[in-house]
């Protein structure tokens, strides 16, 4: 008598599906990142020319059949430098974000789940590190250990720890104040269990977004350090150093700034979009809308 309608019942399964939202950010971000990763991977098996080979007879050539992006003031192939430089960029990004996250996230978590006074103290320590300029750290480490990409990355990584720490502590505190954490405590969960089962998943999206932002900052920081002579030492190709070297010839051959500049922009944009897309993808609240 009710027509083709589901009968009203007390039993329910809930509405909608849990299909994840694959948005344009995720796709475009993944594509751009894939491009950079591909460049780095390809560079291990093949490059058109040795990027470190100095050839005085082919200096500052415009892009042509042999040198697809042209050559720089030392006669080195720009395209090959871009390919190999991708490795440096990825290395820099992952290691510095890795260092920052591996130290910063547990620090922030501790700050959120421990008693207030302990958390506050940890945050003051965090602030001290935050106040210390990354550049100064890079200079100190370079003076002690010599110039290298690794040194630069550790400096950048350490300087990024406080942003993770602060963010995760703040997000963690919010989660600790929710009713579901209260219910978990009443259920008998201890602090460790609550941190892992409730706090971590609910701050994960913060970590992802902060990682992608920090990645971008790390890449630019390495470029700046290279500019000042503290980053990747020559002759290892580095997009940052390519930018630095292009500076003096900016009006003569602006393409020497454009190629590494665009490469950096692609990497930065790609990781930012990927971060946003991943965050949305992992959020169970965002399903496919009909």
């Amino acid at each position: 008598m009710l027509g083709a309608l589901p009968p009203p019942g007390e039993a329910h399964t809930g509405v909608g599906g849990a299909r994840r939202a694959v948005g344009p950010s995720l796709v475009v971000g993944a594509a751009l990142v894939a491009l950079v990763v591909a460049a780095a991977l390809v560079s291990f098996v093949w490059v058109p020319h040795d990027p470190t080979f100095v050839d005085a007879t082919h200096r500052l050539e415009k892009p042509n059949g042999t040198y697809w992006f042209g050559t720089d003031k030392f006669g080195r192939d720009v395209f090959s430098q871009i390919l190999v430089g991708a490795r440096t960029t990825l290395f820099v990004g992952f290691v510095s974000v890795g260092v920052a996250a591996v130290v910063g996230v547990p620090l922030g978590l501790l700050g959120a789940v421990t008693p207030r006074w302990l958390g506050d103290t940890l945050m003051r320590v965090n602030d001290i590190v935050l106040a210390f300029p990354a550049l100064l750290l890079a200079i100190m480490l370079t003076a002690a250990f010599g110039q290298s990409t690794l040194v630069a990355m550790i400096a950048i990584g350490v300087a990024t720890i406080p942003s993770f720490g602060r963010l995760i502590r703040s997000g963690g505190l919010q989660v600790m104040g929710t009713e579901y954490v209260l219910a978990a405590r009443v259920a008998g969960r201890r602090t460790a269990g609550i941190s892992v089962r409730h706090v971590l998943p609910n701050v994960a999206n913060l970590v992802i977004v902060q990682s992608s932002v920090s990645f971008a900052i790390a890449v630019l920081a390495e470029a700046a350090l290279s500019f000042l002579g503290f980053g990747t030492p020559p002759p290892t190709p580095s997009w940052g150093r390519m930018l630095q070297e292009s500076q003096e010839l900016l009006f003569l051959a602006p393409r020497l700034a454009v190629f590494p500049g665009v490469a950096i922009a692609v990497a930065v944009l790609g990781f930012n979009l990927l971060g946003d897309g991943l965050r949305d993808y992992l959020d169970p609240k965002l399903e496919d809308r009909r």
Partner: protein
Amino acid sequence: MSDPVLRIRDLVKEYRRPRTSLARPGPVVHALRGVSLEVTRGERFGLVGESGCGKSTLLRILAGVERPTSGTVEVDGLQVAGRSERRLRPLRERLQLVLQDPMSSLDPRMRVKGIVAEPLVAQGLAADVGRVADLLREVGLSAEAAERYPHQFSGGQRQRISIARALAPRPEILLADEPVSALDVSVRAQVLNLLTDLVEQRGLTLVFVSHDLSVVRHLCERVAVMSDGRVVETGPTADVYDNPQHPYTQRLVAAVPSLEKALAGATTADLAAAELRETERTTAQ
């Protein structure tokens, strides 16, 4: 006479608000000013009061997630006030909590099966699929609900999930903090019926906290009225409502709107009359 399963004596809770000046420490808040109550086994006990009366603080101390400044709380013969988490295990096995806000009382990133099984996992009890399915069915949800996330359910359904979670470790005592206040009228009736059934079937002791007198009247046999950190009146619900003794209870009962009062001609002025007299009395002081 049934033995008291819950015995609260002279419970006091004070805390300082954060400083707003360098010279003086923050003001002291007297959340509880010496509360004593007894709840017998299997009883349905209501706790009524408005915001700031201390009922939520009392509930948190009972649930073992907050320590009192002084006083004792005995649950089934066990002293629980001020105990460390490690020694509160026996409490967690006996007493569970259903909270008010269906939106925030369930972890949005956890599937329903994880949420409902949590007390079992936390206490090292068997947490298999069958047990979760049984619990979901008992609260009127289907077993398929286990795979879904909280946001896919309505407010009433989420409260059912909360109830299923609370019942998982087979507690003897159920504390409920305004569990139906955030629900629509028709959903409220369904969830109240569910609570009535479950409490009856399992012989639970229920402590039901609410600002809504009518709901407490429906569900509870005895009620305690709280105001400003103190219990001002206790007694069988019908007596307290029909014949309130304490001035605060009288004001409270007078201010509640109801269909019967309205159809008998009560206006908003009538409801507000007792409150207005009180405001005039306090400003005159």
